[in-house]
């Protein structure tokens, strides 16, 4: 689950999950919902992403989402489903297809993932992530 948050010139997401992995997956879903204006994305292609967990969880989150933006820019892909495992490194799979304005809808171009007001919070229910994008 995720929720899109908007301020005057910015857009971001609040994502939830029972685990940190699930919250990372939902944050990625939310990011592509912004790009495609909530379009339905089929899982036709799969990409593997590996990131060393060498700093903190916040940096790992920014790296994870930046990696997906990279694939979007370079291969023209959008993703709708994700699987994330985090141990000594993050191993993630992203499932999606070529972006098509007609099919997926036209959202907002995200330039970058920012550290501003970045939050990863834990409570009894699980993990909440808040992240803002530069657009």
């Amino acid at each position, binding site marked *: 689950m995720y929720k*899109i948050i*908007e*301020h*005057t*010139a910015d*857009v971001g997401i609040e994502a939830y999950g029972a685990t940190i992995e699930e919250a990372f997956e939902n944050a990625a879903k939310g990011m592509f919902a912004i*790009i495609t*204006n909530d379009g339905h994305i089929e899982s036709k292609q799969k990409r593997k992403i590996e990131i060393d967990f060498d700093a903190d969880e916040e*940096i790992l989150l*920014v*790296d994870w989402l*930046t990696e997906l*933006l*990279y694939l*979007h*820019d*370079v291969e*023209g892909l*959008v993703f709708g489903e994700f699987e994330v495992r985090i141990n000594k490194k993050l191993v993630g799979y992203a499932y999606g297809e070529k*972006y098509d*304005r007609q099919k997926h809808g*036209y*959202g*907002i*171009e995200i*330039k*970058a*993932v*920012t*550290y*501003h007001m970045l939050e990863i919070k834990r409570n009894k229910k699980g993990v909440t992530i808040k992240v803002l994008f*530069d*657009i």
Partner: protein
Amino acid sequence: MWSGPLNKVGDYRYEIPKSYRGINGNLKMKVPALIYASDEMLPAIRKDNAPEQTANVATLPGIVGKSLAMPDIHWGYGFPIGGVAATDAEEGVISPGGVGFDINCGVRLVRTNMSIGDINKETIKQLVDELFRNVPSGVGSQAKVRLNKMQLNEVLEMGARWAVENGYGWEEDLEYLEENGCMEIADSNYVSEKAKDRGKAQVGSLGAGNHFLEIQRVAEIFDEEAAKVYGIEKDQIVVMIHTGSRGCGHQICSDYLRVLEQAVRKYNISLPDRQLACAPLKSNEGERYFKAMACAANFAWANRQMIVHWVRESFERVLRQNAEDMEMHIVYDVCHNIAKIEEHEVDGKKMEVCVHRKGATRSFGPGRKEVPAKYRNVGQPVLIPGDMGTESYLLKGTNQAEEAFGSTCHGAGRVMSRAEAKRRWRGREIAHMLEQKGIYAHPASWIVMAEESPDAYKDVSQVVSATHGAGLSLKVAKMIPLGVVKG
């Protein structure tokens, strides 16, 4: 609502004194902060935390003069948008937050020898549609030219010159670009493979958001003499391009925020906000960032150069005339997200400083060697884009701007979120409203039209008037759009 001190210290000048301790009471400003604004703009400026950010910037190691903000100041990541900070080139720091993600986002103006009487509505529509076909734009837009790794490295190190040497534009174009379209310090060895991949995928594309390509009419001349020198007259048709370094620059900024975050710890720099991450200019990290940033800046100049070429090509196709015969010369090209080493006077002494301009434009006055010879007696042309469907401005740089390290404003800035704009308007309504004003728009989608509605932006004329009043740049001409290509 920000309620810190803003002391009026002159017309259009409000100071946050060095003694201000910040919202947490522990801020240690090394210099005062100064915000340029009219009295009427103050309530809006106090609305977000941008003044606090201007004060935060004043804590950067090696900052000289004052931490400045232009009248279009608004909240940004770390530095405010509209922020200008100069640091000692020997002992100061460089900060990616003072440049922004879209390195060398900028504006270029191309003139023609046609006037409004020579061109009818139908022709404008054809031109806009042709531009839309010829220049990749919008979310997910991809390059139509595929460069290999070596060519991309050349783009990063040569900037606009690469484009001209490869058939995109005219030799004389380079003379009318800030830095002649190339920062020599660029070294592609410091750019990650990822940034290069993103660059290859998007070179020669407009992008989305507030970026645009407009056919405009010169609606008003404020300064006949300067306009004449710039080759501008009333009712003339001109073309404005507003875009930056695309994914290449965004990736370089992301990469180096990570590097400089580590550097902050290494060099024991204490900062009020993580996003002010920086490193000494003379450190390994600082030098690497600066050389990579210059690569992104060069990419942006090449990008705008390729787009200019396609603009000329589109005009040639539709009007069946040579671009040379239509005198489609570049008036000028400015960058408004950049850090550069420049010579300025600080406390009566000339010194080398690193000027960070984040949402601010260079505004050099008459006499400076950086201004093209043809313009040197009047000062550098300053280009201020409005938002879709309102006006844009051509101004001239001044020597007064020296007090702000040769800087002025950069544009309008949003006052309403995209979501709010979408709730309020439908894209077709906006298109219709623009049509009533005689503006033909070709957006990548109708949603963009609603999101980018003119009423969702600050009034650019107010911003321009404040810089004119403060003497940072002076009005030369106002341009009104006739046709808009919107990503």
